[in-house]
């Protein structure tokens, strides 16, 4: 019950095929996002935050317990349920990278939101150019 599962998730994740998607640890993806651009990817981690306004994005913790990655809801998904926070979830989707102009626009948009101006552990992931556009997900633990 009191295990910190975020540590164990990444430890047993080397790149492997899951259907057509490549299964990879979040640290691997964050270390070289260019390698995953446009690829179908499966990643797993604890959801630290679900955007309360629309549930269109959430943030997933890497195995190091610090880095996070942004997961956006793709067209196949309505939204992420806030109840996912604190659960370990496996996401499948396409890894995408924004252009410089799109990234700047995203960062300006985030900075303009009052509730985004506080110190947030997922701020780096929130402003990052790259993200997973999820087409499906499944909760592994509660």
């Amino acid at each position, binding site marked *: 019950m009191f295990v910190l599962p975020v540590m164990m998730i990444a430890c047993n994740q080397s790149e492997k095929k899951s259907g057509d998607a490549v299964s990879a640890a979040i640290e691997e993806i964050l270390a070289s996002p260019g390698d995953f651009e446009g690829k179908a990817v499966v990643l797993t981690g604890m959801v630290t935050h679900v955007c309360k306004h629309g549930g269109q994005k959430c943030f997933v913790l890497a195995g190091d317990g*610090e880095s996070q990655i942004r997961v956006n809801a793709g067209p196949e998904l309505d939204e992420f349920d806030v109840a996912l926070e604190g659960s370990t979830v496996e996401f499948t989707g396409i890894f995408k990278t924004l252009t410089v102009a799109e990234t700047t626009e995203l960062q300006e948009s985030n900075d303009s939101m*009052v509730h985004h101006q506080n110190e947030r*552990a997922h701020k780096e992931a929130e402003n990052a150019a790259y993200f997973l556009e999820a087409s499906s997900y499944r909760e592994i633990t509660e």
Partner: protein
Amino acid sequence: MNWRKWNRWLHRELGYVFFGMTIIYGLSGIALNHYVARHWTPDTVIRSEQFEVNPGLTKKSVDKEVIRDILEQVGETDNYKQYYFPSDRELMIYLKGGHITLNLKTGKGLLVKVRNRPVFREVNYLHYNKPKQLWTWFSDLYAVSLILLAVSGLFIVRGKNSITRRGGILTLIGILIPLIFLAIYLWF
């Protein structure tokens, strides 16, 4: 049967059939207004409770025993999910239906419990067209019917309160008010 009788018939029948839908859309309309204005979260009720534990904790000193003590103190042992450290000075414990944040240095914590808000959760679910599929068409039918209700309502009454007299002035005021807001906030 002249057109006024047909008009009254249409207004009455649609009014009865779509009474429930109007309440649903009216209630969720209020919710949406205040959700967008960030006054409240209509779908959920959030309750916060402050508590304190011994100060001077660090990331290294937090283990399963510490987590268990905190959960016991706030009565949430059965609701534990996972924990992590958003920063060197903060601990976040996720619960079923909420979370705990704790300042490690000061020992001051906040228990946040979230539950669904009855009625508003349901009406918002429908208003935002979460069911999709058939609900899309039924709510379209309601939207068209609402227009028919509004138009037919203009021609119910005759005499000094009719659309050509006092009723017309009130209708004009009702059209002008949103136009004024558009002019102030959007167009100029």
